[in-house]
């Protein structure tokens, strides 16, 4: 099969971390297709991007930066046109995106432009007899759908935090080319950054989530302190009940009408474990539950549980974690 194109993301002129996962996933797909399949990494930016020189280490044979004065911020139409033109010109067999906020917006536009289906938010990819087979969670992770894609190019987006970056050194030859065209009609005018150091629940390696057991929105400070103790590696999540009650923003919601997360460590605090919540966090590597009700369903999926009053247990846990990072 023809080569695989990995579409990467930059923000403020630096490669986003999820991009290393995309190169890793693209390399895995290329190797599954056949030994000689190459991986080209594609970056859209205004100029040279910090971190591009490291992509060879994760399996990129070539790193191509397409530059345009309008490519500083995400530009859905300008990006989609530049990527689709590149795919058509170079005849790629597959195009791989991150299923990030940008990727989930961009990949469908590129796919429709190419007249090809999109397998969005996949958690596994393989190949059999030259055809790509991808697996993706459906019903918020209550079931897994495995599909085979006929023809090409095959367009995929990878769920963040699943394709752990692996060192697979390749040449990583750097190229740069200017492209014509405007940003398009949709223009990003501003990015309101969350307070420095805030991680997104979908991307954080550790998530500390709270539910009704917190009793009051102000009590989330207990969880914020625990998250802070993990020294910049943890985000605070929330159950649907507390988001619907207006205690926490929707961006923090984990579950079927919120985010599906797969962190290394998920700490569920005062969350009973409704089926729609479990669906959103069941693929976490390790789950810890802290709940005063020993019969709460959350304990059925938790690796480790503590039955007790969260207002005693969590501050103590925060202390212990602080000691580790002290």
């Amino acid at each position, binding site marked *: 099969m023809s080569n695989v194109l990995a579409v990467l993301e930059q923000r403020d002129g630096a490669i986003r971390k999820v991009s290393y996962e995309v190169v890793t996933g693209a390399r895995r797909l290329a190797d599954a297709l056949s030994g000689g399949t190459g991986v080209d990494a594609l970056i859209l930016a205004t100029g040279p991007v910090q971190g591009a020189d490291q992509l060879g280490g994760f399996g990129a044979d070539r790193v191509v930066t397409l530059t345009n004065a309008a490519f500083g*911020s995400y530009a*859905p139409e300008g990006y989609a046109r530049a990527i689709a033109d590149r795919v058509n010109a170079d005849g790629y067999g597959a195009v791989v995106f991150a*299923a990030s*906020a940008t990727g*989930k*917006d961009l*990949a*469908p536009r590129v*796919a*429709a432009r190419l007249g090809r*289906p*999109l*397998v*969005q*938010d996949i958690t596994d990819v393989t190949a059999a007899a030259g055809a790509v*087979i991808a697996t*993706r*969670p*459906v*019903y918020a992770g*209550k*079931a*897994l*759908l*495995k*599909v*085979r894609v*006929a023809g090409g190019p095959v367009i995929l987006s990878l769920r963040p935090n699943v394709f752990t970056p692996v060192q697979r050194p390749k040449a990583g030859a750097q190229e740069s080319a200017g492209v014509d065209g405007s940003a*398009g*009609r*949709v223009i*990003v005018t501003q*990015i309101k950054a*969350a307070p420095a150091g805030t991680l*997104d629940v*979908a991307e954080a390696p550790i998530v500390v989530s709270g539910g009704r057991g917190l009793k009051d929105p102000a009590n989330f400070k207990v969880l914020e302190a625990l998250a802070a103790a993990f020294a910049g590696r943890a985000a605070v999540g929330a159950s649907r009940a507390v988001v619907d009650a207006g205690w926490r923003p*929707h*961006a923090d919601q984990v579950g079927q*009408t919120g985010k599906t997360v797969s962190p*290394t*460590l998920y700490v569920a605090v005062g969350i009973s474990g409704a*089926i*729609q919540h479990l669906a959103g966090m*069941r*693929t976490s*590597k*390790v*789950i*810890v539950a802290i709940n005063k009700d020993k019969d709460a369903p959350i304990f*059925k*999926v938790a690796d*480790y*549980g503590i*039955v*007790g009053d969260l207002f005693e*247990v969590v*501050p103590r*846990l925060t202390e*212990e*974690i602080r000691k580790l990072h002290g």
Partner: protein
Amino acid sequence: MKIAVCIKRVPDSETRVKIASDGKSLDEAGVKFILNPYDEFAVEEGLRLKEKAGTGEVVVIALGPAAAQETIRTALAMGADRGVLLQTQGLHPDGLETAKALAAELKDAGFDVILLGKMAIDDYNHQVGPMVAELLDLPCVTTVAHLEIVGGKGTAEREIEGGVEVVAFPLPAVLTTDKGLNEPRYPALKGIMAAKKKPLEVKPTAPGPGALEILSLTLPPERQAGKIVGEGSAAVAELVRLLREEAKVL
């Protein structure tokens, strides 16, 4: 203002998934179906845009089986003016085919705003809105959590990792809605009665076969229930030891 809202009939989020005997689809026996929650925000936003403009029409369009008429009636009861069901025999996994069927209905109909939920909570495809936009050559903003439209121009906010993107766009446009955009109204009894008399056109539709073949639908591996480390704050030290030495995540 002329507004289209594309909606979908989906299994309720509390559904326990059972796999049908073909090993490729959901066993629908006993499953309750609802209006896709993200589409509720789209319907509500459509109604608000029309109310603010003081004039216009909100048309609800669904692609799905005959039973999706009920889903359309729900949106009509909320206040939409009329419905169109693009009736199909079951739905397949290729979102591009769904987008093509919707785009064919929306094309040249003079809509100022086309709204869809950001995704359906069944197939999680998360793609039909921007595909419709590409097929109709319209601007598109996805996962909109805040929206202002003044004089043919819009500003939207959408959540991105670690922040919020503020986006400007011209009308007509395709917008997909996220939770947090608004608080959808409940249909009042009067609305439910009125909805029964509102026009609902049924058009038989046969989307293309698409290029995705379902190989299997399976339940994920069950998580093994773990252990209760202990009770109260006395158990914390042991928990931390297990996380370090057994699970090796700290």
